[in-house]
């Protein structure tokens, strides 16, 4: 339960999520319910952000959550947190979907819309995000404009970096390095790693 988690520290929660995922791998449905409570919100949120379309986002979220159940035994804690494992999968699926052939027409339609980078207030429409959204917002604000725009378009918009370069009328190499610098600065600001 999102509300209940408030008193735990982030690392305690993380350890709990990993332990729960381990139990999910053994077929434990209660553990899956607990994992669902922690991850369904961000999984749905990121899919929604990338896809824009609520119905498609829900389909992707459903696929990802089932995939978490199916492949829990493949989670390797040595390679990162359970949260990153699940959300990397969710982001990848959402991006695959948005790049699929039948989505390309819709993408054309929304290209104009995304020429304007949405303000972060709109990006963050979470109702119950446990993570300190203010902190993420502050850290995003600490980036240069080109870093922030590159990260926002690529991560939340689901664009390839060459599309981002086109949208921002910036050289490919610049966008490539801004994506890396931007994420690295966010990492330092958020105290990851």
């Amino acid at each position: 339960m999102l509300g209940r988690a408030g008193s735990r520290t982030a690392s305690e929660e993380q350890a709990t999520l990993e332990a729960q995922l381990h139990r999910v791998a053994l077929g434990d449905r209660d553990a899956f319910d607990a994992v669902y409570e922690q991850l369904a919100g961000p999984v749905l949120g990121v899919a929604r952000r990338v896809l824009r379309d609520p119905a498609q986002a829900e389909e992707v979220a459903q696929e990802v959550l089932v995939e978490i159940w199916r492949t829990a035994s493949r989670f390797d804690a040595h390679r990162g947190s359970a949260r990153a494992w699940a959300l990397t999968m969710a982001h990848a699926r959402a991006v695959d979907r948005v790049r699929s052939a039948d989505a390309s027409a819709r993408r054309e339609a929304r290209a104009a819309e995304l020429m304007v980078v949405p303000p972060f207030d709109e990006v963050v429409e979470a109702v119950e995000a446990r993570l300190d959204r203010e902190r993420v917002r502050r850290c995003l604000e600490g980036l240069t404009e080109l870093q922030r725009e590159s990260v926002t378009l690529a991560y939340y918009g689901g664009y390839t970096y060459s599309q981002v370069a086109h949208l921002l009328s910036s050289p490919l190499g610049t966008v490539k390095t801004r994506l890396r610098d931007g994420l690295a600065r966010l990492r330092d600001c958020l105290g990851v790693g």
Partner: protein
Amino acid sequence: MDPEVHSLTGAYVCHALEPAELEAFERHLARCPTCVQEVAELQETAALLASAAAQTPPPRLKAAVDARIAVTRQIPPVVSHEPARQADRRPRRRWFTALGWGLAAGLAAVVAVLGVRLNDQQNQIDQARQRSTAISTLLAAPDVHAESVNVSTGGNGRVLVSRSRDEAAITVSGLSRLAPGKVYQLWMMGPSGARSGGVVPVTAEAFDSVLAHGLGDARTIGLTVEPAGGSAQPTTEPVMLLPMPA
């Protein structure tokens, strides 16, 4: 190697690389511990961006997920760590198909154990669920290939193959009933010969999909009529030969 390849970590984590670049970068990752470390950290960072976009899921999502996991079999833990190095596959050896069935069968001296799972011990529902999950997973593989041929004695065989998953699903329908004392037997045929894929239970006119793991060098799936109990090597001309891509 372009020294700039290290700077692709950010785009990689955002799933923002073009397919050709993605492939090249993943090859690079396989031998650049620095990038592996950086990717791991940036993935944790990106996960916070995802969390910041969290939304309250509608109750129907939980209901839908619960309904699906009730019929979704979990994959078992990996026992041995197998490196997923598709690029390292041995070069194609096509001489088997060139020489044809008779010679290859004659050459075959070794009967290898093939992981064809018929799941006799498990109940029917369980089997059906497992198969449908396995087949939908197979269908989703990027390199899935489908092939279909007629069985010479009647019926039709189909195979779905994914070399990256090292799996094939084989379905045969419309098979003729055999005389008592005869069975249908599947074979995996490749440069090293024919390996038994097991005796196929034909109760009505069809058998359900059989899932084969560990295709090895097999290039063709064969079906023969054998004496009850099956044979170590095929003893008759195959009634079906289903080619699989290398």
